[in-house]
């Protein structure tokens, strides 16, 4: 194995890790503020990625502008889902019931993506959107051609993730998110607008999922399709569990670890053992499950206190 292969694996894993981290941070944001494990994260991202792909295709706008528009629709999607479905469930619904609610949302979004009425049929046609930076723009790093697009995706993700961390740690609204996450009732009694915080969390999570979808789609095997983010979502959930649902930083860190393990494992499995790369995924996830068996709250998480 020479240095250029290592560079290739490194950049692949950074790219996979970034996309997983974006989706994973969304899941954790929602879990911390509304105590719901959001299984619809992937579907929300996919449906808005479709919007970006369609706008770029139909109007000839660049993928940059379409992405901005899709981020707007993603914001709306998050707000609508929070307002219509999550808030009415309120704090009375058990975590399992909220989980089931998000599963119902998946079905609704899948249904919308399958619809074929008027503009919708055209909107949800599977297609390959353009990359942010054309794939011909490349840079030579230690004997390997790396696409500028990959570097851009990684940089964008790291920028966004750091911006969100800074926001959570340094601003008043970040403080509101943190207190809502640690104890919603107390936060509300102290005058924190927890409803707005939860709504913003859903909207931001939807936007993060959308960026993940648009970044993934051009090089996904089937392009933009309703199942685009299923694999990413599985990894994102694993990152969230592995890093610990109780921290914001842990899942992001775990996402990059999982991205690296997946890229290296898939490469090794297909070039040294001649087996399909899914075997590598299977082994890696099984190892993570076994680690979780001994450390049930993740590598950075601590056991939550439970009261009867």
């Amino acid at each position, binding site marked *: 194995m020479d240095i250029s292969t290592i560079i290739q694996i490194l950049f692949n894993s950074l790219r996979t890790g970034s996309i997983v981290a974006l989706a994973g941070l969304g899941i954790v944001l929602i879990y911390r503020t509304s105590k719901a*494990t959001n*299984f619809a994260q992937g579907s929300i991202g996919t449906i808005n990625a479709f919007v970006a792909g369609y706008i770029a295709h139909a109007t000839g706008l660049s993928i940059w502008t379409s992405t901005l528009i899709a981020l707007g629709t993603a914001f709306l999607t998050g707000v609508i889902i929070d307002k219509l*479905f999550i808030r*009415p*469930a309120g704090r009375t*619904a*058990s*975590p*399992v*019931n909220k*989980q*089931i*609610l998000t*599963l*119902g*949302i*998946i*079905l*609704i*979004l*899948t*249904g*919308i*993506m*399958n*619809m*074929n*009425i008027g503009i919708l*049929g055209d909107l949800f046609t599977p297609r390959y959107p353009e990359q942010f930076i054309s794939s011909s723009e490349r840079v030579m790093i230690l004997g390997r051609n790396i696409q500028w697009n990959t570097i851009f995706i990684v940089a964008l993700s790291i920028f966004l993730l750091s911006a969100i961390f800074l926001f959570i740690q340094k601003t008043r609204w970040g403080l509101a998110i943190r207190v809502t996450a640690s104890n919603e009732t107390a936060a509300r009694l102290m005058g924190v607008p927890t409803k707005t915080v939860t709504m913003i969390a859903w909207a931001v999570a939807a936007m993060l999922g959308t960026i993940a979808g648009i970044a993934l789609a051009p090089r996904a095997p089937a392009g933009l399709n309703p*199942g685009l983010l*299923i*694999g990413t*979502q*599985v990894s994102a*959930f*694993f990152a969230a*569990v592995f890093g610990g649902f109780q921290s914001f930083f842990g899942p992001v860190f775990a996402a990059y670890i999982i991205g690296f393990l997946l890229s290296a494992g898939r490469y090794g499995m297909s070039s040294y053992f001649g087996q*399909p790369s*899914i*075997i590598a*995924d*299977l082994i890696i*996830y099984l190892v993570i*499950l*076994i680690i*979780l*068996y001994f450390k*049930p*709250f993740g590598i950075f998480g601590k056991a939550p206190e*439970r009261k*009867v």
Partner: protein
Amino acid sequence: MQYILLGTVMFFIGRSILLGDTPSNADYFAQILIYTIVALGLNLLLGFSGLVSLATAAFMGISTYGMHILMENYEVNYFLAALIVLIFAGGLGLLVGVLSLKMQGIYLAIATLFVAHVIGELFRSFEAFNYGESARISEITFFGETSLSGYAQDDRIYLMGIVAIGLILAFVVIHNIVKSPSGRAFMAISRSYHAALAMGISVRRYRLLAFMIATIFAAFGGILYLTYMQSTGSVDRNWNLELSLILLAIVVVGGMKSLPGMLLGAAIIIGIPEFFFTPFEEFLQGFGPLENISLRGFDDIFTGLLIILTILFYPYGAIRIISRLKHTVQSKFQNKPSKGGDAA
């Protein structure tokens, strides 16, 4: 006893559909019965233990492909193959359960999401599973003599009979589990996790048991699917996340912790889109400007909305509507004489 009656009635409904004008509808009817069986197992998991599994469809897929490989490649007898598949499914359920149930209940959903994803990818990667596409079996041979092919009408009636017997069996088994000491333990866990723990019930062990039973029921449903459809079904169209969600919807909409509710739930979730949406679509296409209209996707939206509305407004499910109705009718009849005074 009432379950035998129920199964017999279902068999005769299925038979009359098969003998009627549109025998193709019998496939949907068989699906209703099969999904009822799977939902009965899932109900034990979701309704009684408060755990969500997203791998139900994947487990059904494992059993159809498993049966296919055992019967076609190794020429194993039908019943032996079914037994092997059920034991394998139970073992797999045990493995996934042991690894994920140490954590909080919500993690099981994540672990099963992963299991379903990996199983789907495995099916797509290997030739033994026909790369995830559906594969037909030639015929099913019982006791070395009766063979059923699934094309002849008489055979299909027999196959519907087998599905109905499976339904009776599933109802009886679940009924006995629910009425046994284990069932009371499940009921206690579903009411209060901590109280059950304080009463000395090993919550983790019962959750594991519930997950294993749900897995075995899913595999049983898969076996019946293969038996009736004579095909393994494909990963992309049948054994996907969508079906797992639909099965979940059957349990939620039918009414958690209710056994007859599962049949009602399956009839609503599968029956209404298949039997009413399609004719409605044809009806709409009859009008000039709407001739290209398509109601594709509406079935999922319908199911998703039903799940959400049930959780938000009617947590006991559709079966509660029937028992309420019964209650109202009874109280009306009892009150009338006293109000009117002239009972005779």
